[in-house]
């Protein structure tokens, strides 16, 4: 097993993970497969945040869900705490459901509108047979306090529609935290929120991380928030890893042309911006049913070399300490 970036002290290891979906375009037609995640190897260390960055359709959400077996992988292995869970039966995975949690993207869809905040937070405890009624009450209060929904006895009686978007996301974070997980998959947790609220939610997640040493898989399309929250960045393109490395190294010196384009596409507030053209990539991400040959990025790549890039699949190479890139031309 070879994991780029190493796998010491890892809570989760993805070893050449592959998730393909079967789709039929017509009834009875031969099913086609969508290569959502292809040959991704990645480890998340205890207490570490790895940001998975990519456009929609790059397979980042599928990667996150496959990592905790909410979607079944079609190839490769998933190891949790060194234990292979790729083929473990679901009923034997209740412990995994306690140790890994998800903060979903849309706080308007992910909290039950018919439940009070108290019930939302108590439910995971009931499912996992935790504590007596009084103990559960106490833990719900503590969880609400830890996400700054204060005073808890007011907030626990509210329904989701009485809360703002930021407050709902805090409830979703509290729900993810209440079982004391070791790993949280945060799937675009701030993309639906206002800019000023975003920072406070990310601050909250970071604080939880340092207080309790929780590892995060932070799925996002926004490199700017990844910079301020993650330790390492994994850039995905069309189901494959394009670049992987420590945040500082990747953003100071992006080696993959796709990462470079992603960085150019996100403007910092600067009055000079309006006088320049953004160095954006033309076209659209490729179809994952029949991904391009060779390097999947070659049809949109500004520096693709004919005879090489459309022929050979680039391997991840370590060009800087801990900083890997899948590009033939990067040096």
């Amino acid at each position, binding site marked *: 097993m070879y994991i780029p970036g190493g796998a010491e002290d890892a809570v989760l290891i993805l070893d050449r993970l592959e998730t393909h979906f079967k789709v039929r375009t017509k009834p009875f037609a031969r099913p086609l497969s969508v290569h959502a995640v292809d040959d991704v190897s990645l480890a998340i260390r205890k207490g570490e945040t790895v940001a998975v960055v990519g456009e929609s359709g790059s397979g980042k959400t599928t990667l996150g869900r496959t990592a905790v077996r909410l979607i079944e992988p079609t190839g490769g292995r998933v190891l949790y705490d060194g234990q292979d869970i790729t083929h473990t039966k679901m009923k034997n995975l209740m412990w995994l459901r306690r140790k890994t949690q998800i903060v979903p993207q849309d706080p308007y869809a992910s909290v039950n509108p018919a439940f009070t905040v108290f019930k939302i937070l108590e439910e995971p405890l009931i499912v996992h047979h935790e504590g007596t009624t009084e103990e559960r009450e106490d833990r719900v209060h503590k969880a609400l306090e830890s996400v700054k929904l204060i005073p808890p006895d007011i907030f626990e009686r509210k329904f989701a529609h009485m809360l703002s978007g930021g407050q709902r996301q805090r409830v979703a974070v509290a729900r993810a935290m209440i079982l004391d997980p070791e790993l949280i998959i945060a799937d675009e947790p701030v993309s639906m929120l206002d800019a*000023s609220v975003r*920072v406070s939610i990310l601050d909250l997640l970071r604080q939880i991380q340092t207080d309790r040493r929780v590892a995060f898989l932070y799925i996002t399309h926004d490199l700017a928030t990844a910079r301020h929250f993650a330790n390492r960045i994994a850039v995905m393109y069309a189901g494959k890893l394009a670049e992987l490395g420590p945040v500082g190294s990747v953003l100071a010196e992006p080696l993959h042309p796709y990462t470079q384009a992603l960085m150019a596409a996100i403007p*910092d507030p600067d*009055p000079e*911006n309006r006088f320049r053209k953004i160095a954006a990539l033309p076209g*659209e991400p490729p179809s994952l049913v029949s991904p391009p040959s060779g390097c999947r990025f070659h049809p949109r790549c500004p520096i693709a070399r004919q005879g090489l890039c459309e022929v050979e699949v680039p391997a991840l190479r370590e060009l800087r300490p801990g900083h890997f890139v899948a590009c033939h031309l990067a040096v």
Partner: protein
Amino acid sequence: MDGISFDLERGQTLAIVGESGCGKTSTASAILRMLPRNVAKYEGRVEFDGKDLMTLNNEDFRTQVRWRAVSIVFQGAMNALSPMIPVGRQVAEPLMLHLDMDKEEARAKTEEAMESVGLPRYTVDRYAHELSGGMKQRVVIAMALVMRPSLVILDEPTSALDVMTQANIMNLLKQLKEEQGLSYIFITHDLGLSSELADWVGIMYAGQLVEVGPAETVFPKPTHPYTQKLLSSVPRLKSEEKPDSIPGTPPDLTSPPKGCRFHPRCPFVFEKCKSFEPPFFGQTDRSACWLLEAGG
């Protein structure tokens, strides 16, 4: 929304930036008189090309101003394209209705409009489901441009799009501005994005403009505490600076706070802020904040 005043020169772009619920979209809809009839009460003046639009009756407004002089790209408009009608016919509709063009002429104009937004001519015969998000957004922009208006209101034109598609659309908007001398009112909650188009920036808070000024001064040196807070809350990609959150939540607009509406969240609040509403201070970069009284 309450007491909004600004002016905009031809060929210039004003970006209106604020958090959700601050009244950005209402401002845009009010310019086009598109607020629901039961809630809307219009007061004040809207002047366009030296003409006072408030004196026009609804029928004149509809035929002379809306879409012909001022058009709008709504937030999520690409999802409002009809799935049953080819997109070209939807773009051509105002041409046939307002300008009495016949089918061939309208089609030619529509194809031209498609080309100007970087789409192939045959897109006119496509249905909405055949197009990607970025292409649909281009169609919606073509729709806003087809009557050759001089002012286009862009209400979060890229909020549902991917970063790369968003960058391409911003490039397109810049190019159209240069080629056709368009003016934009660009409504967004993203300060970084606003700097891609804005010559002037207006910051809105709780239904009011709190700061208006040229991009050159507002982005590097904002004078209103809210603008300062908002700017420092933006996570920067190209600098190490840590983003900072704004404490508290925006006020309930049914009973806004007395005095300056930002005072409950303002780090520099003093007695006067709590009871008196601040007027605008400053010359080019104007801010409604008592701190700036007597030259600040």
